[in-house]
C-alpha cells in the first residue's frame, strides 16, 4: 500500500467526481424547502399574520417537489444523492424509492391541508410562539426520514421531528398540554434513544451505517455472525414505541387529545406512520433475516394492537381520545403486513399506512369543525344535533367512519382486503380473523360516535334536541378554511376507494423494491453494481420462484455481495483496519 507523493491524489477512488445533475437536487429539495421555510418564518416573527399563508406556500412547494420525485422514481427506479460527494458507504446517502416518495408525498399533502385548517384554528398567540416554524420543521424531520438512506441519518431526522413535535404539542402552554407532553416527551425520547442504541449495536456488528451497504453486508455474512435476533428485536421495540404498537402505546392516548385539533390531526396522521415506515425499512429491506426470526412476534403484536386499539376506542367518552385509540389500531393493521412479509402483505401495509394518514387526519379535522360549532364539547354524552347543524359535515364524517372501519367504497377497504388475503395465503388465518374482528369493533365504535354526535337531535337529557343549545354557525371565511381541507381529504379517500390502482401500483412497486432490493442497492452504489445486479436478476429468475416468502430475497443477493464491494474496496480497507 505504498502511496506516491508525486502523483496527484486519485479522488475518483474515494469520491464522486461527476457533478450532481440538476434534477437530482430534487432529492434534497424537500428538506431544504422546509428548513429554509421555517428559518424565514423565524426571521419574520413579528409579522405573525403572514406565517400561515407563507407556510401553506412552502408546503405547496413541498407537495409539488414530492410529486415530481414520485413520478421520477416510478419512471427511473430508486434515486440517490450522496452528501459531500463521498463514495456511497462513506458519505450520507439520501435514497428515494417508491415507498419513501409515496409516504413523503402523502405527508406533504396532509400537512398542506392541516396548514389551511390552521389558518382558522391557530391563534395569533400560538403563531407568535412559533407554531408554523415548528410545523415546517416537523415536516423536515418526517420528509427526511422518508428520504434518507442512512440509518444514523434516520435517527437524526427522527430527533428533528421529535423536537419540533414537542413545540407543537405545548405551544399553548395549557395545563393539560404540559401533562400530556411530559408523557409524550419522555417515552418518545426513550424510543429514539433505543433506536440509537440498536444502531450502535448494528454498527458494531456490521461496520456500516448506509442501509444499502448494511443490507449487502448482512446478506454476505455467514449465519450467526451478527446478533441478528438482538438487533432486530431492539429495532422492533424502538419502532413499535414510536408507532404506538400495543404493549408500548400508552403515551399516545395520553397526549394526542391535548393540543389544538390541527396539531392532533397532523400528529395522528404522520408521526406514528414514520415509526411504521422505519420498521418496514429496517426489518424488510435491511435485515430480512431479523424479520423472518420475529415474524410470529410481530404477528402477535399486530393482532393485539388492532384488537386493543378498537376496544380502547369503544371504551372512551372523549371522542378525541377514542380517535387516539383508532390510530393505535391502524398501526396494528400495518404491522400485519410486516408480520406476513410477502410482497402482497407489504403492499397492503403501505396502502394501509397511506389510508391511515389520510383518514386519521381528516377525522380529527372533521371533529374539530364540530367542536367549533358546539363550543368545544368533546364528550360523547354532550354531543348531538350535528346533522341538523350541518348535513355536509355529517356526510363527510360518515364517509370517514366507513373509511376508518375498512368498509367499501372508501380507501380503508382495499388494504384490509389485501392484508386478509395475504395472511390467509401464508397460513395466518387467525391474523386475518383479527383484522376482520378489529374492523368490526371499529365499526361499532365509530358508528356510535357518528350516531351520538350527528344522528341524534341533541345531548343526553334533551328530548330529541328540543331543549338543546343550538350549534354555532361559522363565518364564511372560517367555514372555507375548515371545510376545504376536510373535503379535499375525503375526496382523496373516495378516489382511492373507487380507483385504487394508481396508489396500489406505487405501493406494490415499493414493496417489490423492499423485498428484492437490487435496484435500491444498485442506485446507491452506482452503475458498476447495477450491471452486476442485472446479471443477478437473470440468475434469480432462472432459479425460479418456488416460495413467495422473504427467504427468497436472500438467495440472489448473496452472490452479488462481492461485486458491489469492488468499486469501494480500497477505501474500505481503511475502515476495516480499525478492527
Amino acid at each position: 500500500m505504498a502511496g506516491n507523493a508525486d502523483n496527484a491524489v486519485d479522488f475518483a477512488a474515494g469520491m464522486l467526481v461527476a457533478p450532481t445533475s440538476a434534477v437530482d437536487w430534487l432529492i434534497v429539495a424537500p428538506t431544504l424547502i422546509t428548513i429554509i421555510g421555517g428559518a424565514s418564518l423565524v426571521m419574520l416573527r413579528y409579522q405573525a399574520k403572514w406565517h400561515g399563508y407563507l407556510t401553506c406556500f412552502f408546503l405547496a412547494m413541498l407537495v409539488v417537489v414530492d410529486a415530481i420525485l414520485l413520478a421520477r422514481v416510478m419512471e427511473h427506479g430508486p434515486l440517490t444523492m450522496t452528501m459531500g460527494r463521498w463514495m456511497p458507504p462513506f458519505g450520507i446517502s439520501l435514497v428515494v424509492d417508491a415507498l419513501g416518495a409515496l409516504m413523503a408525498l402523502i405527508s406533504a399533502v396532509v400537512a398542506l391541508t392541516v396548514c389551511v385548517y390552521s389558518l382558522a384554528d391557530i391563534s395569533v398567540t400560538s403563531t407568535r410562539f412559533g407554531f408554523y416554524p415548528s410545523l415546517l420543521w416537523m415536516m423536515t424531520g418526517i420528509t427526511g426520514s422518508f428520504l434518507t438512506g442512512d440509518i444514523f441519518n434516520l435517527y437524526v431526522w427522527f430527533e428533528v421531528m421529535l423536537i419540533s413535535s414537542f413545540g407543537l404539542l405545548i405551544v399553548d402552554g395549557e395545563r393539560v398540554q404540559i401533562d400530556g407532553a411530559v408523557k409524550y416527551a419522555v417515552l418518545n425520547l426513550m424510543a429514539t434513544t433505543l433506536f440509537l442504541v440498536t444502531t450502535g449495536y448494528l454498527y458494531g456488528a456490521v461496520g456500516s451505517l448506509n442501509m444499502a451497504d448494511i443490507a449487502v453486508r448482512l446478506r454476505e455474512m455467514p449465519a450467526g455472525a451478527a446478533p441478528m435476533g438482538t438487533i432486530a428485536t431492539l429495532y422492533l421495540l424502538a419502532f413499535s414505541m414510536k408507532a404506538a404498537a400495543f404493549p408500548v402505546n400508552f403515551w399516545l392516548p395520553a397526549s394526542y387529545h391535548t393540543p389544538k385539533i390541527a396539531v392532533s390531526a397532523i400528529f395522528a396522521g404522520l408521526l406514528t406512520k414514520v415509526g411504521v415506515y422505519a420498521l418496514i425499512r429496517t426489518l424488510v429491506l435491511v435485515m430480512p433475516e431479523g424479520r423472518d426470526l420475529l415474524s410470529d412476534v410481530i404477528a402477535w403484536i399486530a393482532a393485539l394492537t388492532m384488537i386493543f386499539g378498537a376496544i380502547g376506542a369503544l371504551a372512551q367518552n372523549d371522542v378525541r381520545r377514542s380517535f387516539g385509540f383508532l390510530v393505535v389500531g391502524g398501526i396494528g393493521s400495518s404491522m400485519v403486513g410486516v408480520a406476513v412479509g410477502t410482497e402482497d402483505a407489504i403492499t397492503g401495509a403501505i396502502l394501509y399506512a397511506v389510508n391511515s394518514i389520510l383518514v386519521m387526519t381528516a377525522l380529527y379535522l372533521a371533529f374539530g369543525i364540530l367542536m367549533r360549532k358546539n363550543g368545544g364539547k368533546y364528550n360523547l354524552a354532550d354531543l348531538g344535533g350535528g346533522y341538523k347543524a350541518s348535513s355536509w359535515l355529517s356526510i363527510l364524517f360518515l364517509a370517514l367512519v366507513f373509511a376508518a372501519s375498512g368498509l367499501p367504497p372508501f380507501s380503508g377497504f382495499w388494504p384490509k382486503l389485501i392484508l386478509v388475503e395475504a395472511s390467509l395465503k401464508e397460513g395466518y388465518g387467525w391474523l386475518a380473523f383479527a383484522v376482520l374482528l378489529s374492523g368490526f369493533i371499529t365499526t361499532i365504535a365509530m358508528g356510535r360516535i357518528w350516531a351520538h354526535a350527528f344522528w341524534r337531535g341533541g345531548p343526553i337529557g334533551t328530548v330529541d334536541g328540543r331543549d338543546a343549545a343550538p350549534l354555532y354557525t361559522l363565518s364564511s371565511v372560517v367555514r372555507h378554511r375548515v371545510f376545504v381541507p376536510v373535503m379535499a381529504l375525503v375526496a382523496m379517500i373516495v378516489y382511492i376507494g373507487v380507483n385504487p390502482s394508481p396508489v396500489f401500483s406505487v405501493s406494490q412497486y415499493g414493496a417489490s423494491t423492499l423485498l428484492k432490493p437490487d435496484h435500491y442497492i444498485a442506485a446507491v452504489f452506482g452503475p458498476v453494481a447495477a450491471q452486476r445486479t442485472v446479471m443477478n436478476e437473470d440468475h434469480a429468475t432462472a432459479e425460479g420462484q418456488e416460495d413467495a416468502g422473504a427467504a427468497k430475497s436472500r438467495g440472489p443477493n448473496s452472490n452479488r455481495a462481492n461485486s458491489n464491494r469492488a468499486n469501494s474496496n480500497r477505501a474500505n480497507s481503511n475502515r476495516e483496519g480499525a478492527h
Partner: protein
Amino acid sequence: MEGVLSILVGIFFAVSIYLMMSRYTIRIMLGIAVLGNAVNLLIFTSGRLMREVPPIIPVGELVPPGPTANPLPQALILTAIVISFSFLAFLLVLAYRAYQELGTDDIVEMRVAEPADEDLPPVSY
C-alpha cells in the same frame, strides 16, 4: 478494554433504567441524562477501541500506514451528545413547568390529561 467498557455501559444502563422507573420527574430526568451517556459510550465501544494511532494520513501517503483508531464513532457521538443535551434541556424546562402548573412532580398524580374519574361512554344506541 472493550470488555471493561461493556460492563461500564451495562452499569450505566442499569442505573438509568432504575432511575427512570421512579415516579418522580426529576429522577426520570436524571435517568435520561445517564441514558444518553450510556448510549454514547456504547457507540464508542462498538467502533472498537484503539489507543495509540489517530486516523491521520501522513503527508505524501494516500492511505494510513497501519491500523488506526476509528473516527466515525466519535462523529456519531458528537451528534448524539448535541441532540441528547438539547433534549435534556427541553425536558428539564418541561418538568419544571409541569411542577409549576400541576403542583406535583409525581407522575402518578398527573391526571389532568387523563382524568381518573372520567365518565364511561353512554350506552344509548
